[in-house]
């Protein structure tokens, strides 16, 4: 009996180690926003190649900490690092996937796309300067819409988040009052309102509190059938949050001149550009001690760029444009080297 158990154990261990030899494991950590699509890609990629992709969705800040501590092969962040910060840490970054942040409201009688706001009005609502739904500045943007005299209940994220980073980045660009008093960060000192934990927390508060306004990632607004708001973009058009309009914002972006891919897609030019669009980034070291693993990471992301677009669209993300993918892969080949200077991506 003992012998049999031993034999079984030995077979199991051998089996596992054989498998481990055949298939590498890629370890990454970071942003929660792209987690569903990375997970989907990882599953499909694993089926095809046997390579295991292990991604810990611990948040952008956590991802940056982990890559700096060198406990993972790549980090992921919703907010791009500034070129100086990248150079200081010896890191490089590239955009992987895009999405949009959408203001949502809960006002009796107002459905999706029936309310239009401009950037500075949105900022002043979050600054507690506009406190009633029938404020003259809101009614002026919405002729013919019956707005109640109710108080506006502001909802924001309670946790630090890339979504907040993108949202406050937009408000900073369109409102001098916001830029001066609050600023752009993953967590800010909100002048008013309730904090919900995570996208689902904000979505729950907005659907529970009458007269509320919040902001969530596009997928949450869609899946929870929330009343999204139209925004006036830089070109002065009222645009709806749709995948096509996110892509319009990305298409107009000048990636070629963005040093270190430091590119924020908020308030982009273009007739149809949704103004609160953002990209999620991957962080890797320029000098790789373990070129084989780095190559596996790049192979995975290359595969995802080329085969992952449809999976991403199904989950309401926006894939990167062809042009940008070509640029990114050129950067891989130029910037990522093994310890003795050899190119890893050819």
């Amino acid at each position, binding site marked *: 009996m003992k012998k049999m158990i031993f034999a079984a154990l030995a077979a199991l261990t051998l089996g596992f180690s054989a498998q481990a030899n055949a298939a590498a494991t890629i370890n990454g950590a970071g942003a929660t926003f792209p987690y569903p699509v990375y997970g989907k890609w990882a599953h499909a990629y694993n089926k095809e190649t046997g390579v295991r992709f292990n991604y810990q969705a611990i948040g952008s*800040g956590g991802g940056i900490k982990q890559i700096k501590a060198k406990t993972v092969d790549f980090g992921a962040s919703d907010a791009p690092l500034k070129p100086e910060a990248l150079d200081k840490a010896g890191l490089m970054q590239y955009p992987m996937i895009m999405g949009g942040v959408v203001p949502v409201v809960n006002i009796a009688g107002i459905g999706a796309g029936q309310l239009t706001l401009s950037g500075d009005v949105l900022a002043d609502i979050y600054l507690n300067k506009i406190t009633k739904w029938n404020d003259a500045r809101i009614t002026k943007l919405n002729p013919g819409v019956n707005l109640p005299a109710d108080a506006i209940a502001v909802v924001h994220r309670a946790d630090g988040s890339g979504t907040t980073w993108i949202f406050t980045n937009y408000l900073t660009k369109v409102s001098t009052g916001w830029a001066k008093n609050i600023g752009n960060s993953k*967590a800010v000192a909100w002048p008013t309102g309730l904090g919900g934990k995570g996208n689902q927390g904000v979505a729950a*508060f907005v659907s*529970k509190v009458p007269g509320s306004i919040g902001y969530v990632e596009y997928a949450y607004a869609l899946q929870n059938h929330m009343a999204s708001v139209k925004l006036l973009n830089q070109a002065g058009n009222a645009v709806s949050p749709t995948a096509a309009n996110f892509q319009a914002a990305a298409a107009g972006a000048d990636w070629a001149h963005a040093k270190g891919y430091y590119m924020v897609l908020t308030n982009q030019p273009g007739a149809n550009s949704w103004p609160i669009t953002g990209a999620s980034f991957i962080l890797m070291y320029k000098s790789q001690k373990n070129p084989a693993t780095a190559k596996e990471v790049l192979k995975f992301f290359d595969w995802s760029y080329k085969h992952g677009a449809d999976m991403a669209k199904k989950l309401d993300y926006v894939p990167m444009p062809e042009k940008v993918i070509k640029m990114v892969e050129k950067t891989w080949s130029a910037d990522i080297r093994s310890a003795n200077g050899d190119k890893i991506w050819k």
Partner: protein
Amino acid sequence: MPAASTSKSGFSADQLFRLLTSAFAAFIAVLFIVMLAVLWHQSQPSIDKFGFSFLISSDWNPVTDQYGALIAIIGTLLTTFVAMFIALPVSLGIALFLAEIAPYWMRGPVGTAIELLAAIPSIVYGMWGLFVIVPIMASSVEPWLYHHLGFLPLFSTPPIGIGILTAGLVLALMIIPFIASITRDVFLMCPQNLKESAYGLGATNWEVVKDVMIPYGIKGIAGAVFLGLGRALGETMAVTFVIGNAYHLSWSLLAPGNSIASTLANEFTEADGELYTSSLIELGLVLFLITFIVLSLAEIWLHSGNKKRGI
């Protein structure tokens, strides 16, 4: 193996047992000191920068790197106070009912139900609070308080269902099973002949409870209350769901606030920058000290009470 009372090295099993158990006990003390030391050490950057003002400043601004704990401290204490205010009488009532008044067929099932409630993870209470309690509070309880008692600063902000009061209520519901089930056990341990003597002297049900059972079990009851208190002070998820997570100082229980534990849960993962992280750790240190002080005060109060009662 033969059970030898002495091993070769000359240790008796008794001595070994004593050594082992004192090591376990010492482990708690060491753990306490190590945790305190680590928290203290890691919050140095924030202590150096803000000093005492950390405790009395209501600023919490990650953009400008200004941190103060006042709002979180007040939120923690207020929610705990509201929770104890509701939970204490209710759980004593439940315990007395189950130990004294309830018919025998009822005691077993209801007792088990309470113990089961005590085992539910707190996040379930949080979600239930958000999806069930919050709408009730927003549509009926808080509007009533606001319209009838709105002249008091305590209920002076518009009712939205999310805030300190709801957080306290959910906390209360969470700790009631704890306090009630332990207190019931304490009441059941009260010797029958003590109670019967009191009844024999003509005491009423209420007098027996007040003059025999509660004084007899006061230590155990206090222990149960401390457990509930400790849990309420440090509770994270249940509070995070319903407190509103807002850094605004308000007298009103209807306004959203923040607690130390929920601030930590919300912000730790995304905190970058040394000062931000260290301020969060200092918040943890503050919570540690608050819990320590509150429980010590309770202990002291209990001992002084003992002297008065002559126990």
